[in-house]
């Protein structure tokens, strides 16, 4: 078992690093990019926002998720390949990306407390714009192609602590730091030289490293057996984007708003769980930090779904999930407001369990959804895969 745990941890690290960059939506072009919702395949499969799930989980966006992960250490990672199409009013194209969702681990401290460590994506900033134009060079109209590329994103590393104070009440808290980087490059290429040599492309680049504090606190309350209600507050200090020494570009600061989350789950009867969640944050304060005008304000997300255990498969329980989720996105396309709606389904394969405690699980969630923002419409399919291995 100990060997399996180490093996899983190594695989998590290797795969997590591999998939750290992605580009899954043109909504990454707006503001700080496309926000990650910080959930795993289990939550995604039943439309949950991650708050108030009835079973233990290790979610970067949920400080009380690690409650009850008290028997053995756990590691988990999530990957999210997605694909789809977009139309931005001027062109159509394909979306295909593979996002590293999160990687994390939890370690029990006695039978009531758990500490956790996680690294997760916060904003996806991978996108590019291509524009054809001409430049007047001595009376000749020389065709040019401008490609502006943004590559990178904001991530967060968090340390968490969750403690159960009574059979019905537990609290959790995380502190962390923003990390990650983004490189933005404009390259202008010239199609026809007309001279003795081709015209060298023009490049202008900047690279910034992200930093800044963040923290969250939350509480989970089980008023009756089989019912959990949880709430959490997510605070963020100023997100600082510091230009690296290699580039003569300006630093920038962004005020990230406080986010409130509330959610709950209920075990209606044996094997049937329902879940609901709601979150909100007011992004209006960041408008002054953005050099590109954008319509930003309060955003709301909600979702819900069901999980039903069909029976047993591969020697473990085999739940089937379905749900719906709605997200207002803080940054839209070309400054417009943006929303995301999706239908989801998912399953869990339990690879190993001991005394009804799952020790190795493999969750798969599949979403079909749309995003709308001004002239931009996107259809996307997203596969979420979460592997969790526990052992000691």
């Amino acid at each position, binding site marked *: 078992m100990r060997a399996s745990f180490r093996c899983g941890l190594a695989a998590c690290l290797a795969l997590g690093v591999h998939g750290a960059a992605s580009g899954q939506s043109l909504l990454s072009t707006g503001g700080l990019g496309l926000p990650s919702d910080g959930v795993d395949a289990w939550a995604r499969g039943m439309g949950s926002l991650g708050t108030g799930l009835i079973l233990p989980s290790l979610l970067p966006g949920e400080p009380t998720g690690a409650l009850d992960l008290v028997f053995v250490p756990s590691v988990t990672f999530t990957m999210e390949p997605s694909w789809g199409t977009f139309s931005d*009013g001027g062109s159509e194209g394909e979306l295909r990306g593979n996002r590293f969702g999160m990687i994390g681990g939890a370690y029990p401290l006695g039978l009531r407390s758990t500490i956790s460590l996680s690294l997760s994506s916060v904003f996806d900033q991978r996108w590019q714009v291509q524009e054809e134009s001409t430049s007047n060079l001595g009376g000749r109209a020389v065709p040019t192609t401008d490609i502006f590329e943004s590559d990178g994103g904001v991530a967060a590393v968090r340390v968490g602590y969750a403690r159960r104070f009574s059979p019905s009440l537990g609290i959790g808290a995380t502190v962390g730091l923003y990390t990650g980087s983004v490189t933005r490059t404009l390259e202008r290429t010239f199609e026809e030289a007309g001279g003795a040599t081709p015209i060298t492309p023009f490049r202008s680049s900047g690279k910034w490293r992200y930093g800044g504090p963040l923290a969250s606190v939350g509480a989970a309350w089980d008023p009756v057996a089989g019912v959990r209600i949880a709430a959490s507050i997510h605070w963020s200090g100023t997100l600082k984007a510091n230009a690296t020494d290699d580039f003569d570009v300006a630093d920038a600061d962004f005020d990230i708003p406080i986010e409130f989350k509330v959610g709950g789950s209920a075990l209606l009867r044996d094997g049937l769980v329902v879940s609901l969640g709601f979150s909100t944050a007011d992004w209006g304060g960041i408008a002054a930090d953005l050099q590109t005008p954008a319509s930003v304000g309060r955003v709301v997300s909600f979702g819900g779904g069901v999980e039903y255990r069909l029976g047993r498969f591969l020697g473990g329980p085999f739940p089937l999930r379905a749900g719906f989720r709605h997200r207002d996105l803080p940054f839209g396309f070309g400054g417009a407001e943006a929303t995301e709606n999706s239908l989801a389904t998912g399953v869990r394969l339990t690879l190993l369990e001991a005394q009804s405690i799952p020790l190795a699980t493999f969750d798969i969630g599949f979403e079909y959804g749309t995003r709308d923002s001004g002239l931009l419409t996107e259809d996307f399919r997203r596969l979420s895969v979460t592997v969790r291995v526990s052992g000691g």
Partner: protein
Amino acid sequence: MSGSQFTERLALTLLLVAGLGACTETVPTASNGDLIPIDPLTFEVLLPWAEFGTSIQVIGGFGAPSELSGGVLAESFQGVLDVRTLINFGFFPTLIVVEDSLGITRPGEELTFPGGELTLFFDTIESTNTGPVTVVAEAITGAWDPRTATWVLASDSLGQSVPWPIPGGGPTRPIGTGVFDKSVGDTVKITIDSLTVASWADSLTNVGGLLLRVQESGERLRLNQVLFLTNARATINPDTMTQEVVLVRDITSIFQPDPAAPGTDLRVGGAPSWRTVFSLDLPDVVMPPPEVCAIIQCPVELTPERLNQAELVLTTRPSEAGFQPSDTLRLDTRAVLAHEQLPKSPLGPSLSFSLGVPMPPEFFSGGGGQAAVVPLTPFIINLMEADPEGEPPPTSVALLALFEPNGLSFASFVGLGGVGEPVLRLVLTVSEAVKLP
């Protein structure tokens, strides 16, 4: 579940996830240019010579006609130019392998050379004739030095000048003629008599060699290659004759008149070759065209990041009669690494393409007046990126023929002080720094 089953399932799971991780990615690409947060502006600036050049000179004497690949024949080309090619053969065979009277194959060393055949290969593009022309082969009767021979002098070395008895390689003795007709082929064959071959084969008497000239006036031929096959016979079997290749030892072209000094013109090429060498001192700022200054703040600082293209624009002139190119000239551009050592300064690697900058022959005939562009982008970027406290980069550039010398003809350009003097063409892009949203 057994441990091995679990390990197997976990491995399969990780393999599946790894497969997902390896999925190809497509960066979402929008076409809406408004999403680009900066708006660069590209424009062209023409700097007159006074704003970037500090010195320019034409230096001749690089190489010699004997270093040409092949030779040139001309008779009153463009009414003025006569050119003859002189060849000395060496390395006649000293033995051949034949069967003796007993039928045994063995080397025969006492050889006679009963005649031979000369095959001349001409460049059909560079040669100017459109119809058949007669190529005349004559035996040179006097000694000559391939490195210093000119139309007037048979040799000019060791401080001693020896003129030809008759200018132009004379006196000579006729050998034979052949006809070069492009419509038939690119070769001319001329039979060489035994007496001539024997004199060439005898190292004591071989002081002259072969002179080739064209008989018809108004043509200039470019000789690419000479193949001489001599007949050979050994005394051990005089009935058997073989053909052996005799290599060319020396070849050069002598011509009259010598081209005039370039004067104020710039000149590149010829044999011996001319080079045009100039130095640059770039301004810190440049003034874009007025329509650009209506958009951005002028003047604009000249930085390597902004420079997309730098070209020296020369205006062509008709080259001197007789020396106008009949095929494309290729110009090379190289940094002068030690300007103070000119004309013997070492040069840097080529700044041009591997085949140089092609200049069509019509650039240098008729009225000239064509714009000839010479690439300087990497050189100027290197100049601008130089560390002020480090080794100063070369500031001078040499324009020269790609293969030097490559022919008697040369390229001519308008020099300083007149309409069409050299200008520096810069393509610049100005943009604000990339920023975050």
